[in-house]
């Protein structure tokens, strides 16, 4: 065995804190180490060819790299090994950057640690065994969870590439948040006018199946072969019989708050989500339907001419196989009841940005007229408050919700177009208008008369006059003085938040989320679509606040990832799987109960012992199902279970070397 050790400077990143030459020097005397050197950038072409040259010249068969985290460049070095005809698992990486040079300042101590880390890697590689992956067939069907604009775009792209897609949506119609918007910034396109064609395209596409009123109940399997259990909620309306005439909706006697209009209007207990709903078939809200609550009524069933109403309909559980899953579940908007200073929920004229959006919408609760909820009068002066609950960790979220600056500019523009005499006062911390044509759009809003006041609002309270107006107290940082605005309407730009049940879906899918609950991508810079679980991709705001073009871009990117996998038709299995030593296995099968992937089975083996043939049970590993966690190896009493790449011998050698 001949081991080559290569220590990377990473420019100055490692070299400044670690004596890289010293580290290489101290490796030279170690058993089996045939070559040790330091290189400026190992990941560069020059660095790679230096390793290649040394492999040829010194006939190296194991390589130890002291560089950045293996999570960064392990694949790069493994590919180099393959190109040199060596097994990729004959390379071992000591993490000298993230775990040493970047976290320490004392060069002497950091160098001692670096030597330990590289020696540990050398010890480990002495016991390395060659590992191979297997090719698995991929089930060429995608599931998109969430039918907002991001989910729709991803579904259309995959379907256009010729692969079947199921587009799952919890509500009774696809469309998501974008369907609630009036206009979009910075072009002031009507939101419905650009969204509805996409919705229809998805619904009519021969490769897309809409699964509305549905939710994910369980996920098992792995990349290329996920099994998803989907609950199709009973809508009480047989979609195949319903012709969408809407007579049932007209005649339904029960009225409830319309969530789509943010509770500013009423809908019936049998309803479609909004007039342009896709599919345009009504559903019964069983929690509010008189028939389901009292057993009386039944008007909709009596008047339906096609017999589509079915009160006996049951939830249906379907199980389907998918090769890839795209998560596009979107977001919730915070309701700032907990922030008492804004008086939200205590005065009807304190509303959120989305409430105003619905009012501005021609098919909204007020037919496009902005009116004070308290008295139905036109407001003369509106105060907009930015960053409500955002960008302040004491009030909720330290992050920026990203879209509020621009939608507030849009609101003030739309208002000034509708009624030029309305005054808009906008309290802001900074205006964040990074994006194509965004700064110009903000400028336009200013020129149209929006009054931007730099400063935060300390309190909103009733003015106590007969018109029931509000007093907004704030601080104008430009004037350095307290200001008070008497407003008819206060609009809060509330923070974007992950869906309340995002965490639940995340744990079903085995994907992680950040401290706020947004799903975490595999790499912040270079893998923005992927998750740590292969075959599961993220799009839209469920990964972090973003505007429509960003969500659409991410959707097409994630779709491309899924299409690439489907095109290849196969994925490689994890090479670092469990290995059974049959001689040691006692057949207790404890490993089977610990395995989360049902990858462990058992078989009978025959042995000759003392002149007799004896039957014995031993564990077996399905290398396709095994993901290499090592739970079995950790608990095996007889030490018969091992994990490729992390064997007992390798880990003990690492411990011993320290």
């Amino acid at each position: 065995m001949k081991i080559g050790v290569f220590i990377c400077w990473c420019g100055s990143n490692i070299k400044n804190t670690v004596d890289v030459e010293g580290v290489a020097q101290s490796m030279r005397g170690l058993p089996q180490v045939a070559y040790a050197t330091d290189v400026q950038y190992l990941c560069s072409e020059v660095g790679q060819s230096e390793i290649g040259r040394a492999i040829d010249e010194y006939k190296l068969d194991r390589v130890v790299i002291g560089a950045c985290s293996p999570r960064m460049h392990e694949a790069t070095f493994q590919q180099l090994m393959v190109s040199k005809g060596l097994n990729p698992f004959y390379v071992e990486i000591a993490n000298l950057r993230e775990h040493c040079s970047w976290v320490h300042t004392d060069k002497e101590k950091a160098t001692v640690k670096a030597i330990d880390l590289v020696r540990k890697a050398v010890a480990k590689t002495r016991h390395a065994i060659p590992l191979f992956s297997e090719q698995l067939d991929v089930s060429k069907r995608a599931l998109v969870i969430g039918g907002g604009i991001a989910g729709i775009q991803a579904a259309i792209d995959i379907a256009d590439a010729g692969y079947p897609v199921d587009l799952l949506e919890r509500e009774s119609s696809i469309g998501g948040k974008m369907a609630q918007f009036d206009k979009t910034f910075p072009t002031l396109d009507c939101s419905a006018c650009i969204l509805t064609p996409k919705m229809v395209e998805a619904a009519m596409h021969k490769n897309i199946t809409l699964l509305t009123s549905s939710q994910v109940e369980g996920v098992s399997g792995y990349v290329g072969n996920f099994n998803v259990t989907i609950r199709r909620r009973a809508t009480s309306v047989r979609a195949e019989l319903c012709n969408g005439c809407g007579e049932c909706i007209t005649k339904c006697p029960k009225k409830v708050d319309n969530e789509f209009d943010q509770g500013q209007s009423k809908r019936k207990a049998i309803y479609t989500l909004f007039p342009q709903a896709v599919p345009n078939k009504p559903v019964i809200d069983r929690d509010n339907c008189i028939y389901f609550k009292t057993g009386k009524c039944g008007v909709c069933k009596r008047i339906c001419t096609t017999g589509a109403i079915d009160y006996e309909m049951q939830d249906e559980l379907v199980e389907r196989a998918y090769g890839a899953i795209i998560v596009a579940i979107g977001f919730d908007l915070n309701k700032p009841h907990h922030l008492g200073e804004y008086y939200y929920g205590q005065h009807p004229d304190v509303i959120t940005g989305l409430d105003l959006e619905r009012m501005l919408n021609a098919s909204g609760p007020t037919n496009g007229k902005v009116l004070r909820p308290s008295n139905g009068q036109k407001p003369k002066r509106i105060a907009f408050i930015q960053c409500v609950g955002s960008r302040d960790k004491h009030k909720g979220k330290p992050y920026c919700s990203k879209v509020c600056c621009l939608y507030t500019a849009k609101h003030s523009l739309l208002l000034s177009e509708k009624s030029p005499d309305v005054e808009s006062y906008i309290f802001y911390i900074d205006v964040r208008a990074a994006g194509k044509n965004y700064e110009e759009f903000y400028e336009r809003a200013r020129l149209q008369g929006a009054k931007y006041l730099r400063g935060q609002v300390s309190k909103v309270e009733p003015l106590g006059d007969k018109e029931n107006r509000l007093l907004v107290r704030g601080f104008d940082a430009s004037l350095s003085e307290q200001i008070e605005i008497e407003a008819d309407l206060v609009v809060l730009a509330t923070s974007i938040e992950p869906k309340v049940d995002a965490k639940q879906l995340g744990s079903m899918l085995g994907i992680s989320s950040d401290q706020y609950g947004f799903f975490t991508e595999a790499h912040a810079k270079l893998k923005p679509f992927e998750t740590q679980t292969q075959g599961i991709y993220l799009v839209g705001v469920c990964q972090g606040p973003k505007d429509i073009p960003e969500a659409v871009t991410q959707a097409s990117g994630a779709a491309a990832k899924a299409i690439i996998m489907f095109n290849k038709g196969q994925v490689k299995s994890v090479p670092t799987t469990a290995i059974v030593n049959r001689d040691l296995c006692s057949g207790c099968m404890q490993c089977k109960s610990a395995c989360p992937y049902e990858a462990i089975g058992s078989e009978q083996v025959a042995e000759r012992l003392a002149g007799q043939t004896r039957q014995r049970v031993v564990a077996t590993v399905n290398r396709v199902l095994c993901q290499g966690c090592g739970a079995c190896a950790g608990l095996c009493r007889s030490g018969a279970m091992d994990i490729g790449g992390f064997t007992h011998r390798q880990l003990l050698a690492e411990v011993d070397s320290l």
Partner: protein
Amino acid sequence: MTQDSFEPKIVAFCCNWCSYAGADLAGTGRLKYPENIRIIRVPCSSRVDAALVLRAFQNGADGVMIAGCHPGDCHYDTGNYHTRKRMVLLKSLLEFIGLSSDRLLVKWISGNEADRFQVTVERFTKELKQMGAYEKARDLRCAK
């Protein structure tokens, strides 16, 4: 050896998906912590068995840390539950045979909790400095 000059040796087993990533993020964020820790990468905290922990103590480790994903967040669904069970048992066994269970730290650190990683290492190093060198579990045959 006085408390100030004594530098404890810490062997840490970090799961690849959460804690190792958290340690990486601490590096990316240039957070600083003491040099005493040596991290061994494992696929999952459940890969760590008692033998590895004991071997580390035999070999001269003054403290051993096992770090994995938060319960419910395991990359492999249930691995950290095995770890939790196993390490509770190991801690009571350590006490039973007369060794200290305080020197075995089990911690859940996610991939974005760089600060939690930093604070954990700082605190554990400080505690071990106070406890002093750990000779009791040393195996002289392992002495280098």
